[in-house]
C-alpha cells in the first residue's frame, strides 16, 4: 500500500505514480476510478439507501421516518406479492424466450438475405428496429387499439375477415397477460435481432464450407455450427433483455393498467403503484429490495452459465 510508505509526501506520491505503485499506470486504480466513482454515487449508494428505506416507515407525504421492520414483514407477508411475482415471472420468461426465438429467426433470415444479396434486407432490419425505438407509452396505446375486445377491434376485425370469431384479448386474466407479452415481444425483438445478427456475421464462412464438404445439411450446420458459435452472445442477450423486461411498465400502463384486477400487474408496476398511489416510500423500497434479490439471483445463475462458456 502506497500510504504505508509514509516518509513524507513527495516520495509517497512518486511511489504511488511509479509503475508499481497503487496509482501507477499498470495498476487498475486510475483506469477504474471514473467508473468506480459513477457506479458508487449512482448505483451503490442508492442501492444502499433502498436497503435502508426498506427498514423504515418512510412516506412521500412525510419527511420524518423511523426505523422499523414492520414494512418489511407487511409487504413480504402480503399474498398479493406472490401473485405479482408469478405474473412477473411468466411475463419475463415468455418475453425472453419469444424475443430470442423471433430475434434469431429474423436474424438468420436477414443474414441469409444479406449473404445472398436478396432485396428487402435493410428494410426488414429497419422495420423491426422501429418498434424498438418507439416510446413505450405509444406502443401501449397502439396495442390497446389493436387488441380492443370489441368486435370492431383491429385484431378481431382481421379474425372476422378470415371467418374466425372475436377473441377476448384483454378481458380475461390469462389472455390479458398474453396480450401484454405479445406487445412486449413486438417491442423488444429488435434488440435481440441486432445482437444475433451481429453474432451471425462474425461466424467464419469457412466453418460452413467445411461442413458442406462433409455433407452436412442446412439444419445440421445450424445445429452444430450456428448455435454453438452464437452461445456467448445469446448469454449476454439474455442478461440485457431480462433486465429491460423486468423494468417494463411504461407500455403496460396504457395497455391494461395492470388489470383486469391484478392480472397484468408486474413487479415494476406494483413498485410504481406503491410509491405513487400509496405514497409509501418504504413499501416501494421493500419491493425494490425484492427486485434486487431477484436480479442478484439471476446474475448468479447467468454467471454460472457464462463461466461454463469460458467466455469471460
Amino acid at each position, binding site marked *: 500500500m502506497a500510504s504505508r510508505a509514509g516518509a513524507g509526501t513527495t516520495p509517497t506520491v512518486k511511489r504511488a505514480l511509479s509503475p508499481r505503485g497503487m496509482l501507477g*499506470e*499498470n*495498476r*487498475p486504480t*486510475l*483506469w*477504474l476510478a471514473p*467508473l468506480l466513482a*459513477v*457506479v458508487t*454515487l449512482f*448505483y451503490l*449508494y*442508492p*442501492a444502499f*439507501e433502498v436497503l435502508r*428505506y426498506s427498514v423504515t416507515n418512510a412516506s412521500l407525504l412525510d419527511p420524518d421516518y423511523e426505523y422499523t421492520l414492520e414494512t418489511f414483514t407487511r409487504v413480504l407477508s402480503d399474498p398479493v406479492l406472490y401473485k405479482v411475482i408469478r405474473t412477473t415471472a411468466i411475463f419475463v420468461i415468455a418475453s425472453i424466450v419469444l424475443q430470442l426465438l423471433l430475434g434469431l*429467426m429474423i436474424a*438468420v433470415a436477414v443474414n441469409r*438475405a444479406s449473404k*445472398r444479396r*436478396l432485396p*428487402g434486407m*435493410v428494410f426488414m432490419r*429497419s*422495420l423491426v*428496429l*422501429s*418498434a*424498438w*425505438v*418507439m*416510446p413505450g407509452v*405509444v406502443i401501449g*396505446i*397502439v396495442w390497446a*387499439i*389493436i387488441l380492443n375486445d370489441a368486435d370492431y377491434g*383491429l385484431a378481431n*376485425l382481421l379474425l372476422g*375477415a378470415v371467418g374466425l370469431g372475436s377473441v377476448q384479448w384483454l378481458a380475461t386474466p390469462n389472455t390479458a397477460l398474453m396480450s401484454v407479452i405479445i406487445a412486449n415481444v413486438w417491442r423488444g425483438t429488435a434488440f435481440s435481432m*441486432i*445482437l444475433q*445478427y*451481429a453474432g451471425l*456475421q*462474425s461466424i467464419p464462412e469457412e466453418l460452413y464450407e467445411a461442413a458442406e464438404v462433409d455433407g452436412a445439411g442446412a439444419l445440421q450446420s445450424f445445429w452444430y455450427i450456428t448455435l454453438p458459435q452464437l452461445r456467448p*452472445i445469446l448469454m*449476454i442477450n439474455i*442478461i440485457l433483455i431480462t*433486465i429491460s423486461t423486468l423494468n417494463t411498465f*411504461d407500455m403496460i400502463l396504457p395497455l391494461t393498467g395492470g388489470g383486469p384486477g391484478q392480472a397484468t400487474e408486474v413487479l*415494476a408496476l406494483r413498485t*410504481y403503484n406503491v410509491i405513487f398511489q400509496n405514497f409509501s416510500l418504504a413499501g*416501494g*423500497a421493500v419491493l*425494490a429490495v425484492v*427486485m434486487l434479490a431477484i436480479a442478484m439471483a439471476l*446474475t448468479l445463475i447467468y*454467471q454460472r452459465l457464462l463461466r461454463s462458456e469460458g467466455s469471460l
Partner: protein
Amino acid sequence: MGRRAQRRVGDAMTYLVFFFALLFFGGPLLWLLSLSIRTQQEIFITSLRLIPENPTFENYTEVLYTAQFSVFLLNSLKLALAGSIGALVVSAPAAYAFSRLTFRGNKLFLIGVLGLQMISPLVVVIPLYRYFDRLNLVDSHFSTAMVYIAILVPLATWMLKGFFDGVPPALDEAAMVDGCTRFGAFRRVTLPLILPGLTSTFVLTAILAWGEFVVPYVLLSEPSLLPISIGILNFQGNYASNSTNVLAAGGVLAMLPAIATFVILQRFIVRALTSGAIKG
C-alpha cells in the same frame, strides 16, 4: 436435392420469415401511421381501411404547433448524447484496464460491473429522487444525465472490453517501447484503433438512452426539461378530449430521429459489432 434447389428452398424460407415478420412488426406500425392521418371523427371508426376517408396532416401540424414538441426532442437529444458520451468517457479506460492489465479480481470485478446491469433503474431512482431533492438537483438535466451515464456504463464497459480484446496487445506494447506511456499508448494507439467499436457502442447506448422512461419520469417534471419518451404523454390529451390521432403523429415523429440514426449508421454498426465485441 440439388444445390440450386436447396438455395431456392432457402430463399423461399427467408421470404416466408420476412412475410410473417412484416405482418407482425409492420402491421401495428402501419396502423400507427394510419391513425396519425385521421381526423378526430375517424379515430373511432375501426374498419380495415388503412387510409381514412379524409386524410389530414393536421395532427402533425398540431404536434409541431405545440412548441413543446421540439423542446422535448431537443431534451431527448441532449440527454441521450450526454448519457452515451459520458458512458464512453467513463467506461473506455475501465474497459482497457479489464482487457490489458492483470490484477487481482479482474474477472470478478468485470462480472460485478455486469451484475450492476441487473439492478433496475427503478430501484435506484427513488432514493436518488430524495437525494437530489435535498441537493436541489431535481428537475435538472445534469443530475439526470449522470444517472443515464451510470445506467449505460455496464453495457458500454462490456462492449468496449470486447473491442479492446480484438486489438493485439503487441500494438500498444510497441508504442510503449517507442517511449509512450501506457496512457499515451491508450490514447494515441488503442483508442483510434477501436473507433468503429466506440461508434457502435455510442449508437447503441444513445438509442437506449433515447427510450429511457423510468429515470426522467421520476427525476424530471418541468415540461421544458422532459424528453420525448415522457413528453409524449402530454399529447394524450385528457379524458374530455381524446387525441389518439395527435398522439400517433407525435409517436411517429418521436421515433424518426432514432430510426434515422440507425438506418444511416447501421452498416457501420453491424460491421463494428461483428469485428469485436461479439466474439467475447
